[in-house]
């Protein structure tokens, strides 16, 4: 005989103000199988949970229904309370009478009626619940960090310094990401390379870090603690073991005029190259697309000059299959191409450049060795116009969101310009100055007050060329007047957008992303570094535009999550898994294809004499995540999900 306890929570005013809980209690007391029904202001509180435990013991309950908030909120709380009172936690169900009931309805009688129905349906379900035991799975103590920008490097170092193995995968030939391209960094103006390089070297030399540059993650399977990851190591055509990084090949390569991506196309590089002088590892790659040998079948100059015979034109991509326990995604961002604003003339006038290009001009290791020179003719600009929000906060042409870092780096650019070009005049068009952060507002004030950048609140409507000048027409909204400035260079603070392949890569890894391609966190406020997929975490600008301090903090937070996970040898998994009825299975294997976790295998059913009777689907309990996809797919209705069996769901529906 079922002895169900029903606990109706007011959730303060949240439920209590809209639902007549006393009526709900008496309706439940009348429901067959219910031994006790009580209400309380906050069942999730300590005394509230005590009430539940006491009732379980006193009434010898066989099942518990807590009518309260969403199971995502407190299912774990109440299951734990049940377990403490000696009741199997899976005999506890949550009837959500808050989110889709008290919160959304205005009429008290109708809301109460609905709450009664919802609670009843869960009582009918819980009557059919079975005792379930958690499943234990081992944890592979090896983390994968994808992306070798500052966020990925920081996460890898923190995990490795805690003594755990890390595989750090970067798809470019060198570690570094965008930070390696920057000149000096706000708000302290320290040289980006100088603070970055030691980190890159430390990561490359760390005994616990396996660094795979020029490599890409192609497939991720499995689940928390037990991922299987396939990585492609692209062929560099240079043997990493043999190469000493002397750079002779780079000097001698006859191709010299290839547009340099690292310098944002402001400089040139050969076909065999390292992206920048401090590259880690300091081993070149051959750019197959531009290499004379790969194009014409003749050249191999690099091979001839290489003293250690490191160059191998026959090299093939290699594949690695790794067992991984946790994944940190730190794939960063790109800057938006601003060609959609025809009026700014980007792409049309050589001296209209992006902020990132300005970083390269200002960088001591950049194409101009740190001198601010305009790209068209190498002349030092006397006047520069900076245009903020060139793409951000523009729902019609650009992106809706604020890119967060552009106010700061534009102030930085104005400052660097003032320091490098005495007498140079910087004008900044802005919408708002968003400089929230430690030392940030002071920094922008300094740009205005000490370095005399002229800030104009308003938008630019047009940039055109006249008498060798770039004419910038905009409006100063504070004075309510149109302005026209004759500039030598225009710098656009372009929007920060996700990597071009971010959406596809989300599918490879098995995480979600927003409409732009920024990766989704499990909860924006309370679980900002976790994804909805257990064991996969997010660091840096791949989640949203971020500056270095934020990227690094998030990376360290990820590391602490990973280290926490690796502090255990076994993980307890919910026993909510699918089970197949082999006698009714028709062996179509639709379920096996549909299963997103590859948990379903073929199993032969043999007769006593060993003859094949039939082949059916077998669900591996270690791999199944209980998502239920196979259940809905199976045409013969052969699969059931523990904790959500067809009978339970049917009873629940019929209880309505």
């Amino acid at each position, binding site marked *: 005989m079922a002895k169900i306890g029903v606990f109706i929570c007011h959730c303060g005013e949240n439920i209590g103000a809209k639902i007549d809980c006393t009526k709900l209690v008496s309706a439940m007391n009348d429901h067959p199988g219910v031994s006790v029904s009580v209400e309380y202001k906050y069942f999730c509180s300590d005394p509230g949970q005590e009430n539940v435990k006491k009732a379980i013991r006193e009434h010898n309950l066989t099942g518990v229904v807590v009518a309260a908030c969403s199971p995502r909120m407190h299912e774990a709380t109440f299951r734990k309370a049940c377990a403490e009172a000696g009741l199997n936690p899976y005999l506890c169900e949550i009837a959500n009478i808050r989110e889709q009931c008290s919160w959304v309805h205005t009429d008290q009688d109708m809301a109460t009626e609905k709450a009664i129905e919802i609670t009843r349906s869960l009582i009918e379900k819980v009557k059919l619940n079975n005792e379930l035991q958690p499943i234990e799975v081992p944890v592979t103590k090896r983390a994968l960090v994808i992306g070798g920008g500052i966020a990925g490097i920081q996460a890898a170092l923190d995990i490795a310094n805690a003594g755990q193995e890390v595989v750090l995968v970067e798809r470019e030939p060198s570690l570094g990401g965008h930070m390696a391209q920057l000149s000096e960094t706000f708000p302290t103006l320290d040289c980006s390379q100088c603070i970055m390089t030691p980190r890159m070297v430390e990561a490359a030399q760390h005994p616990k870090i396996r660094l795979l540059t020029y490599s890409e993650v192609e497939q991720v399977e499995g689940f928390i603690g037990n991922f299987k990851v396939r990585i492609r190591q692209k062929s560099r055509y240079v043997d990493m073991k043999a190469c000493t990084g002397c750079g002779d090949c780079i000097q001698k390569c006859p191709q010299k005029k290839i547009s340099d991506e690292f310098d944002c196309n402001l400089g040139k590089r050969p076909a065999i190259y390292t992206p920048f002088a401090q590259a880690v590892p300091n081993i070149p790659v051959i750019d197959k697309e531009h290499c004379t040998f790969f194009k014409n079948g003749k050249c191999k100059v690099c091979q001839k000059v290489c003293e250690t015979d490191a160059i191998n034109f026959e090299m093939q991509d290699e594949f690695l299959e790794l067992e991984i326990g946790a994944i940190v995604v730190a794939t960063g961002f790109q800057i938006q191409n601003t060609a959609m604003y025809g009026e700014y003339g980007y792409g049309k006038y050589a001296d209209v450049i992006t902020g990132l290009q300005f970083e390269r001009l200002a960088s001591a290791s950049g194409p101009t060795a740190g001198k601010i020179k305009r790209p068209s003719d190498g002349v030092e600009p006397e006047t520069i116009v900076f245009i903020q929000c060139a793409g951000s906060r523009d729902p019609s042409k650009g992106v809706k969101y604020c890119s967060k870092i552009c106010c700061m780096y534009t102030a930085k650019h104005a400052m660097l310009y003032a320091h490098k070009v005495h007498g140079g005049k910087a004008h900044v068009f802005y919408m708002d100055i968003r400089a929230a952060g430690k030392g940030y507002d002071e920094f922008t004030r300094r740009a205005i007050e000490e370095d005399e950048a002229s800030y104009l609140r308003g938008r630019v409507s047009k940039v055109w060329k006249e008498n060798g000048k770039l004419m910038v027409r905009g409006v100063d909204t504070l004075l309510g007047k149109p302005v026209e400035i004759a500039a030598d260079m225009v710098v656009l603070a372009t929007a920060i957008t996700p990597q071009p392949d971010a959406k596809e890569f989300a599918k490879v890894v098995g995480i979600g992303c927003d409409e732009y391609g920024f990766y989704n966190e499990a909860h924006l406020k309370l679980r900002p570094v976790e994804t909805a997929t257990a064991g996969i975490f997010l660091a840096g600008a791949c989640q949203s535009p971020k500056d270095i301090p934020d990227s690094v903090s998030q990376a360290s937070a990820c590391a602490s999550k990973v280290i926490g996970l690796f502090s255990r040898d076994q993980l307890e998994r919910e026993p909510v898994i699918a089970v197949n009825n082999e006698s009714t299975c028709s062996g179509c294997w639709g379920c096996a294809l*549909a299963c997103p976790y590859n948990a379903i295998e073929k199993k032969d059913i043999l007769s006593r004499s060993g003859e094949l009777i039939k082949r059916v689907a077998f669900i591996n309990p270690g791999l199944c995540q209980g998502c239920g996809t196979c259940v809905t797919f199976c045409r013969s209705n052969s699969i059931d999900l523990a904790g959500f069996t*067809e009978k339970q769901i*049917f009873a629940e529906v019929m209880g309505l």
Partner: protein
Amino acid sequence: MSIQEQYRKRAAELLASGEVKIIIGYGAGSTPDRRRALFIRSADDASLLHVDAACDANLSGYLVSEGLLSDRKKVGIFLRPEGIRSVNILAAESQLDPLQIVIIGFNVENGSLAALQGSGVNDFSSLISTLKESRSTPEEQALIEKIEGMTPEERFAFWQAEFSKCIKCYACRQVCPMCYCKRCIVDNNQPQWVHTSSHTLGNFEWNLVRAFHLSGRCVECGGCDRACPVNIPLRLINRRMAQEVLDAFDHFSGMSHTQEPVLASFKKDDPETFIL
């Protein structure tokens, strides 16, 4: 030699040489203008085979009869293009090994019989590709357009009237080569998801389940439509669902024996228009 004679001869040779252990074909039916399935194991019986425009049943469903293929021996079978497509699907769904099937293909176009060249499923791939481009008959198209022109209420009323006739005989399921499950979801009575009695709700449930389970799998052989004793226009449902999967996923059922089932597979560029 008539096509029928040629095919009788071919069947006799297949059996006599031992290449196939059995031939599944058509024999005389209950009236002179009907044909029914005929199973012959001896070359002498080849003269009982009929091949003509009246051979409309899709015989591929017999291939999955319990034990027929478990000895790994080959089976010869008379199939129209739809039947060849269903063999592909049965192979894709692991119900049979296509190497065991020797196809004796024929087609009926505008009431007249045509022979098809080939014997293995792959021999018919280009034929199947051309079928992908063809559309439904003008009468069917007119009816589909009429239904699509209706308001949701009118359409509901139309199908309610049609489904109310259903007597849950499951002839549509029995005849369909794709309905090979030993236990169908409607036979599950723990819990009883689909009402067995033939009242409107249960009839709706059954016909919706059937439509859904056959989406991307039905080859439009017309078997169910002919089998239905109360003349529910099942072909319209089949057609509509086939069009849906073709439009949304470029999926034409039975293109090859390695085609992934459309509703169980996931491709990165699948349209996600249904996600709000």
